[in-house]
């Protein structure tokens, strides 16, 4: 693996991507929707309700209160309204974690199928780049904007929700281990997996439009995977979460191998009808 070539490929892809209004609007727009518009439209109405409206209702199940009491320092003092807001904030946080799955459908389509569509692929394949360098470069250049978009969204989401909820909790949300593991471990792994699946799709399709359509199918099983990981933690144990992460990591390695094996110069140049 030649890192100089890899760096050149990534630099070129990122430069191209950030000169595309379409990609830029996806990388910036998606975090804005998930991190700004959704929490504002979902949480703010709850914040604006008079706290007395929440009094005298049913109690949360003990399982929830115990779980959140472990993560949120002032859970009991947050009151019913604060506790509902905290639960809502954590549920909506999962939506932020969909960004690393959805964005690669855009970025990977652009960097791989875009090359074919614009007929630049042949010159790239005629260069001394090896298959592994090419696939790794494409994975990284699709992965970086996805992870940057996710981190940006998580930061904005964290600021907005904490501004709204802090008066109820007097503590900062999303600094707990689960949230951090999701952001720094699971989100990047999901992003890599999503890019790898898009690369596999790119070997079968000829247009960016087709890639988007098939890419939307890739998103669904990965969303189920996220839900599975959340459930494994909430309802089983931390060890189950570590196991889920290990499975995710293994899948990333397996799909990397498949992607580099499936990516074939001849197939990328000529499609037999």
């Amino acid at each position, binding site marked *: 693996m030649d890192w100089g*070539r890899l760096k050149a490929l990534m630099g070129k892809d990122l430069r*191209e991507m950030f000169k595309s209004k379409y990609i830029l609007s996806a990388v910036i727009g998606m975090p804005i929707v998930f991190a700004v518009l959704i929490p504002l439209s979902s949480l703010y109405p709850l914040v604006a309700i008079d706290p007395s409206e929440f009094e005298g209702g049913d109690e949360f199940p003990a399982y929830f209160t115990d779980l959140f009491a472990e993560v949120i320092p002032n859970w009991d003092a947050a009151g019913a309204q604060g506790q509902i807001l905290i639960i809502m904030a954590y549920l909506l946080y999962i939506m932020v974690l969909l960004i690393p799955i959805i964005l690669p459908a855009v970025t990977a389509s652009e960097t791989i199928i875009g090359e074919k569509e614009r007929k630049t692929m042949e010159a790239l394949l005629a260069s*001394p780049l090896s298959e592994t360098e090419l696939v790794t470069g494409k994975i990284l250049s699709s992965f970086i904007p996805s992870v940057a978009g996710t981190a940006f969204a998580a930061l904005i989401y964290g600021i907005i929700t904490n501004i709204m909820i802090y008066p109820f909790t007097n503590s900062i949300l999303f600094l707990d281990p689960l949230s951090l593991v999701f952001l720094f471990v699971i989100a990047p792994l999901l992003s890599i997996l999503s890019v790898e699946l898009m690369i596999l799709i790119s070997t079968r399709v000829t247009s960016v439009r087709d890639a988007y359509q098939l890419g939307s199918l890739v998103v669904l099983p990965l969303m189920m995977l996220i839900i599975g990981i959340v459930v494994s933690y909430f309802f089983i144990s931390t060890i189950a979460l570590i196991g889920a992460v290990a499975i995710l990591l293994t899948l990333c390695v397996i799909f990397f191998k498949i992607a580099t094996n499936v990516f074939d110069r001849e197939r990328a140049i000529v499609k*037999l009808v």
Partner: protein
Amino acid sequence: MLAVETNNLTKMFHKLKAVDELNLEIKEAEIYSLLGPNGAGKTTSVRMLTGLLRPTMGGARVLGLDISENLQEIRSRVGHLTETPALYERLTVRQNLDFFAKLYKVPETEIKPRIEEIVDLFELPEKLDDPAGTLSKGMKQKVAIARAMFHKPELIFLDEPTASLSPESAKVVREQIIKLAKKEKRTFFICTHNLFEAERLSSRVGIINHGRLVAQGSPAELREMRKDETITIFRFSTWESNTKEFFDDMKIEIVEQNQDKKYVSTIIKDIEKQTPNIINSLAKSNFQLVEVKHEFPTLERIYLELVEMEGVPREENNMEEI
């Protein structure tokens, strides 16, 4: 050492034989043109030699390296101008050249001076910081040629290099090709259907049709092969009514006669021996001969005859560019 050597190189796409037992030997510092109509197998041949396609049968050595074993080294030592300019249109010309320079491991300190050198060669300096997408078709092609030559490859494959260039730009490119071949001993493998270009540039040409090499040699050698088809024109100061009878008696085939312009075009077998005899006979018979001219077969005529003889080429319509 030969720059390119192919041994029954064959490529099949399903049942279609795109390249059929191609045997080539291209010497170092040679400018070789592979001529052929669209779909004849030119691009497929180059794609096999640059490792983009795997041969179905046969093999080849490029710069002495086997294409089935040393592809990465071959790719790093050759330049390749693809059918389309294949530039990144959102990036500037400089960024395009810089990117490929890094892929070909041109040392960082050499990239900037080399960019300035090569854009001067191809008369591009004022366009250097413009996005490639804003350039004219001809300019894009020049940038693509500059890119193929940027890392100073020993062997350069050029697929229709002057197809979209203006006559002035095409002249600049041709001059650079000749200069690089002569001064820097670089080998050029040019795919073209531009016969004018092939004739002026190449030391040897190959004519390919239906994937098969149907003729090969220097333009002069190809003409020599067809010298029996040389047309000899006899022009007279006055037209004699028995001109046709004279040539018929000498058993010389008349291709055309023009009484107003006072000439006869003929095809003579063994022109070196026969022409002086005919001139003597004409003089003895009191024909007022003012000019004798041989029109040797042009490369265009040879090419068209060979291609037509082989039938209309099939388009590679069962292949889809992706």
